[in-house]
């Protein structure tokens, strides 16, 4: 019998190696972050993580990398031709010459992913069908049998990619029976977990509040999932622009009332990168409902949940220390030859106070 198939979908950033092969480091880190929490709860850990889940890495950055690599190659070739009269053409494509560079290239490796998905509909379609093909392969019946339980955990840009693909899979009916691809392929997803949910900000062809990616209920019979977890950290700048808050829409309201839609507004800073997958997962407000939806309600007792929440520090001392060190490192560099130390220490103090304020908010 198949295990619970768990699809992991990455966010923005480079997830390929220099030769265009999938880079597994984010997936491995994310699985490690999940396993860390999984091991804390005895009833969850009754069966090991490996015994419970079949992990599948969904990588769409390969497609983005292929495109920017071709831009880079073409641009470099035009520049390498070395024809003085072609200067206007070289200016036109010169800015693309490092587009596939992976190191220290935030604009191309992170921002370009989001821009290409949101503003370039043809790239969006390419990514959608590529991800759909990967999901189809993951959920296909194999020698261990048919998939009966599967879930998706998506992060950042991956949340809108996951939404768009599930919407397409559950609304496309290429067969004569008129059954959607998803309905014919496997049961609806046990859980769609959107970590650092930016799907509302980046919605395009289908609107996230009115789509089929909503928990099944009496008012929503056709749907891609049974439960939906949306995580948004108030210190994560990416999710603050237009947070995923469906409000009083009937399908979402009913799902929220029966516990199949869980909205988790968190406010912890356990890593300086508040957008990171780990910064979300360490928070019991995030990982408790996530694990309960993945392995079943009751797998974390009320007492265990209360203990975990009680022990959790929204801003642990180690993170504050790390933050201050980072600030001081910059201050040191900036201070070369400048005697006005007080202004910088004031700045560091303010930053520390802000972190302390966030820590205080956890206990309110």
């Amino acid at each position, binding site marked *: 019998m198949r295990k619970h198939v768990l699809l992991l979908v990455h966010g923005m950033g480079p997830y390929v190696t220099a030769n265009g092969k999938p880079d597994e480091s984010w997936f491995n880190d994310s699985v490690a972050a999940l396993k860390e929490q999984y091991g804390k709860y005895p009833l969850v850990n009754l069966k090991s993580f490996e015994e419970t889940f079949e992990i599948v890495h969904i990588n769409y950055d390969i497609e983005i990398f292929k495109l920017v690599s071709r831009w880079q190659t073409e641009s470099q070739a035009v520049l390498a031709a070395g024809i003085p009269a072609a200067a206007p053409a070289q200016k036109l494509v010169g800015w693309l010459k490092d587009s596939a560079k992976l190191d220290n290239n935030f604009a191309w490796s992170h921002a370009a992913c989001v821009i290409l998905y949101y503003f370039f509909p043809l790239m969006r379609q390419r990514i959608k069908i590529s991800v759909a093909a990967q999901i189809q392969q993951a959920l296909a019946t194999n020698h261990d049998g048919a998939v009966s339980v599967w879930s998706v955990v998506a992060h950042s840009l991956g949340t809108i990619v996951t939404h768009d693909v599930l919407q397409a899979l559950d609304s496309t009916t290429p067969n004569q029976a008129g059954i959607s*691809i998803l309905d014919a392929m496997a049961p609806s997803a046990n*859980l769609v977990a959107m970590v650092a949910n930016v799907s509302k900000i980046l919605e395009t062809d289908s609107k996230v509040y009115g789509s089929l990616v909503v928990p099944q209920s009496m008012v929503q019979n056709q749907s891609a999932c049974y439960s939906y977890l949306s995580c948004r950290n108030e210190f994560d700048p990416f999710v603050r622009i237009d947070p995923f808050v469906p409000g009083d829409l009937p399908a979402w309201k009913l799902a929220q009332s029966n516990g199949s839609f869980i909205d988790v507004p968190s406010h912890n800073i356990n890593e300086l990168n508040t957008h990171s997958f780990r910064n979300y997962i360490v928070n019991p407000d995030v990982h408790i409902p996530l694990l309960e939806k993945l392995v079943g309600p*009751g797998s974390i007792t009320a007492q265990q949940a209360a203990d975990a929440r009680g022990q959790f520090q929204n801003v642990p001392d180690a993170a504050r220390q790390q933050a201050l060190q980072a600030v001081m490192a910059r201050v040191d560099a900036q201070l070369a030859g400048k005697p006005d130390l007080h202004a910088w220490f004031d700045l560091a103090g303010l930053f520390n106070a802000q972190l302390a304020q966030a820590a205080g908010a956890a206990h309110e």
Partner: protein
Amino acid sequence: MNSMGLRALVALASLACCGALRAAPVEPCISAYQKDIAGQSVPADSVYAVITREQGSGCILGQADGTGIEQLLETLRDAKTDAEKAASRQMLFERVLAQFDGLPSTPCDGNTIACSAGRHVAKIRELQQALNAGPVDPRSPLIAQNSWPLVPAIHTIRISNIDLLALLTNECAAGAQSPQCIAAVDFSAKVIRTGESMHQLTDAYSQPIIEADNRFLTERDKQWNSYMNDVSVQYPWELWLNGYLFQKATPAAQRSQFPLAPTSKWVFLHPSPAFERVEGPTGGHSTQAAVVAEIAGYEIWRWDSGGRVTGRLGASLIVSFVDARGSSAVGYGLLLKTPFKNASVGVVFRNGDRGRQVNLAINVDLAKLIQKYKDVDIKKFVGGSLGGQP
């Protein structure tokens, strides 16, 4: 109380309740459950989480499942002919239904074991009859993917409307080791196992539809892969322009699904390396490196049944830049796209020391070509390709 004693208790309770003629088969999950909760204080509403963890790797169709159902499922999966499939299906139904021998079973509303078992068995028999009677409507809930398996998040088997969380929480109110709770665990294991078995069976029955869908997805995937990676590269402004036109031409409902990849594209301000046959100051001809900038152009093609580009044709107005003695650096012309490996041939009009030239230009998809030789230094590659003229 040891597990043997509990099993006997369950069997006796069943017989006492309903006077069944056949005893319930020994449930392997009782001993697994006992082991799982040993030394732990398990609240009633956590019993569901304990027993469902046995699914797959434990006593429910896992290595510790001694019911033989998993083996019958393998036989069904391996069956080749219709006769073999029908025979293995029949054996599976018999073994699955035997799971409920000796258990109270009356189809009725409510979340008691007897009512739930009654509904579940009735649905299994209904499926058996439907499959024996001939083709089942693909839209029938009896063979729907969502009907039979237990989904952890909603704790319900939909076809028989059994909420196992509610049932176990209710039956285990007196404690996770109480006889009533053990009986409920016994029943739950059987319901999950048989529900999962029916899911495996109906999935096999639905394979023709699944395969048709897979063909559709594979073809679309190949088309879009060809569009982005095989057809010559589009620079960002071209990709944006063609995307804008695609959005305009494709209804929103189609765009939110998996639309057909485009069968045409505009080319706009597109520089690329090329070769041009240029006339020298003494009248001889040589092949020179050039940069050809397509000012504006248009290409069309078709998709074959394998998702490949076929019949690709197109044309562009071009400006060609060269650095050759005896020739003006800038020429103008027309480039025709050919279906052969993204290559294009063109004619370039250029002024030279010996008057007006009409030259042949060739443009290959260098980016695509270089993709095959990723580790090659671009300058050396281009220099080598152009006969030592970097």
